[in-house]
């Protein structure tokens, strides 16, 4: 069976000469569909870099990264944009909703890029908002939502394109403990009930406790892996 994500000897360096930093050093990792995996490590260990490479936001200096068997390290331009749009959902630390669009419009945006018809978009937006527990808040702008609610909209946006995987970069870092747990429960439900694959980069204990698989990174290398 082809793994959902497969990285082989993935390396990413920043800077040159003596100032060169090996953010990732020949990391090989496979993630199967339906996993709820956390990439864990201290700051500077390469968590976000690995997540960005898996998500096609950055290009490796060497190695390959394949999603559903497609090597995205070689993609560029519109092909890469379309691949990200259709296959990968992102949740960022700072929510990063478009402030001038309502919750519903933020979710709708990605479907608009996919060319989905307005009627289908509206149905799916409603469904997404129901899933993340924000029914009735579709017309609120991000500024009218709490941090937790904004991050739920971000999760709904990430799911809207029906991606193969959702990559979440420190999704609870800006949330209080209670809100963070509530959000994680939503994600856990999606993972368990809809078989949605989640990969987190985090050092948040709440995520670490809920993840079924932990990948520990240190100095750009996989230090160890645990399955819970």
């Amino acid at each position, binding site marked *: 069976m082809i793994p959902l994500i497969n990285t082989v000897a993935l390396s990413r360096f920043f800077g040159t000469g003596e100032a060169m930093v090996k953010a990732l050093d020949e990391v090989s990792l496979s993630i199967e569909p339906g996993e709820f995996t956390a990439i864990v490590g201290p700051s500077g260990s390469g968590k976000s870099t690995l997540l960005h490479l898996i998500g096609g936001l950055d290009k490796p200096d060497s190695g390959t990264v394949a999603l559903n068997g497609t090597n995205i390290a070689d993609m560029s331009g519109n092909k890469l944009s379309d691949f990200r749009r259709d296959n990968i959902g992102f949740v960022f630390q700072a929510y990063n909703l478009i402030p001038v669009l309502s919750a519903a419009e933020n979710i*709708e945006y*990605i479907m608009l890029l996919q060319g989905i018809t307005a009627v289908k978009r509206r149905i799916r937006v409603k469904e997404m908002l129901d899933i993340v527990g924000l029914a009735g808040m579709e017309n609120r702008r991000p500024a009218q939502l709490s941090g937790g609610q904004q991050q739920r909209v971000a999760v709904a946006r990430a799911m809207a394109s029906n991606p193969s995987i959702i990559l979440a970069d420190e999704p609870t870092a800006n949330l209080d403990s209670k809100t963070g747990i509530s959000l994680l429960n939503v994600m856990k439900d999606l993972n368990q009930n809809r078989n949605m694959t989640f990969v987190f980069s985090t050092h948040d204990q709440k995520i670490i406790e809920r993840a079924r698989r932990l990948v520990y990174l240190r100095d750009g290398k996989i230090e160890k892996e645990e399955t819970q």
Partner: protein
Amino acid sequence: MLILRLAWRNLFRNIRRTVLTCMLIASSLLTIILMDGVMLGMIDVMIGSLTHTLEGEAQINSRGFRDDFEPSIRINNYREIQNELVHDPVVRGASARIIVGAMIASSYNSAGALVYGVDAASEKDVSKIEEAVYAGHFLSGQEREILLGRPMAELLEVELGDRLVLTSSTVDSKEIVQELFRLSGLFEFGPETLDENLIFINLDKAQSLFELTGAAHQIAIRFNRPEMANDPTLNIYKSFNNDQTEANGWLALQPTMGAMLEMTGYSTLIVGGILFLLASLGIINSMFMSIYERIYEFGVIKSVGTRPAEIIKLILTEAFFLALISCFFGIILGYFVSSYFSTNGIPMGRMEMSGIVLDGNMNTILEPYQFINFPIYVTLLTLIAAIYPALFASKIVPTEALQKAL
């Protein structure tokens, strides 16, 4: 629709910046509308000054006469032509003239002059000789009436009622003729070349004096609609351009004026271009500020799969809306300001340019194209100015953008 909503709302994320940018674009539009109105007004005054002072909007001359003003080259059937002209519906007035060089002398001094024999009644419809008379009276048909310009009267040291002797030669027999006149009026057109050199007497007196009975050298014409003057399809240009006569509009009679008008058009274009260039820099700056403020957001929307072309489309749509709002206010402002100066005029003082006198207030001229074409140009220019920022935004690297705002 979502892209349109997003672009529209993005404009109001920083209202102060949007208002300032709109003011920049709107004031550029206002300036170009006003400047064009001023230029049209100035051209109108210049053409009016040129054609209505003496020359007329068109002339029929005996063929070859204008080459060196040889008085023997004349129109013998001028009454017939004049009669035809006054019955032409496009013609407001036509006046026949005799033009002969002479010497004028007073008890104190003498000077060379160009004598215009004019018909007092028909000349009123064509030129401003009567309006230019500031002392005494215009020609009334009395035999010994003569009009001098102020500088010539000063040179001859004469006052109203003083005697003047005109000396010349008859056109055909070349015999010297002298005639006594009494100064009946003093005129001042403005251009010194006219005031220093021209004198006016009655047409029939000139015809008898120079033995040109029944003939004229020139017929000056004024149209009901001045803009028709240079229309080559007019009947008068077709009928009176023949072996005997030549008919020309003022543009053909005064080719330097045509060059001046062309230069005026170019200067409008250059000033407008500079103005728009400066406005473009402001627009580019504003768009870049807007992009830098949202750089993290661009990182996010690129991350979720927005194509570079879609980002360009978004920025250009924002620029389009910005231009629309700006043009809306620019058109309103342009209309009111230009209308004000169209009604009240811009005080110009008195100045002479290439023999053309601009005097008093100059009224701007409003034309529909100023409120249609210029806003279209401004909108296109805003879009062009936004291309560079849009390309920049489309090339934002998501990982770099995401790091910048954190």
